[in-house]
């Protein structure tokens, strides 16, 4: 098990947790405000949540995905890691402004 892949998996799990919080805030907004703006955020969050659940599934349960990762070069694994970690940074910044 390469460290890169472990870190990417952890980042995907973190993304799911952060998004669950964001979707919770936006769902409450939509219930109370009923506007298209609040609904738009909720739908946006829902799709990103689905994306990250897919990542978690691929990293944790999909043997084929792992086989494919290890056929690649170290760069393949680092690029995959980059996707989840960059998204984590973006989501943490969004959570920081949203939690206010």
């Amino acid at each position, binding site marked *: 098990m390469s460290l890169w892949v472990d870190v990417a998996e952890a980042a995907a799990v973190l993304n799911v947790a952060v998004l669950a919080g964001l979707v919770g805030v936006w769902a409450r907004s939509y219930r*109370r405000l*009923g*506007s298209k*703006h609040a609904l738009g*955020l909720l739908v946006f969050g829902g799709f990103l949540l689905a994306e990250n659940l897919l990542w978690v599934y691929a990293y944790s349960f999909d043997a084929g995905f792992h086989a494919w990762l290890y056929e690649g070069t170290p760069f393949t694994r680092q690029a995959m890691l980059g996707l989840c970690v960059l998204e984590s940074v973006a989501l943490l910044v969004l959570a920081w*402004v*949203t939690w*206010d």
Partner: protein
Amino acid sequence: MEGVLWYVLAGTRGGTNRARILRALDDRPRNPNQLAEDLDLDYKTVRHHLDVLTDNDVVRNSGDDYGAVYLPTERVRDHWDTVEEIVAEVE
């Protein structure tokens, strides 16, 4: 209306209370104490929400030193229909 306004009201955890505050101030200008009482919110919370709304040029302070009241800015008044859209239902 600047894109940030809808996020401040619809996107953030405190947004629904900020929307209630904006509605109340549109009804009539009030000071933080009156807002806290009228909306059943903590005084410190009200002050924080007013700071955020002021930073985003949504409300302004009337400028009297003693018992200053807050009111919606001209910019928000000009876009009041947009505010109504964002804040479709808040009580």
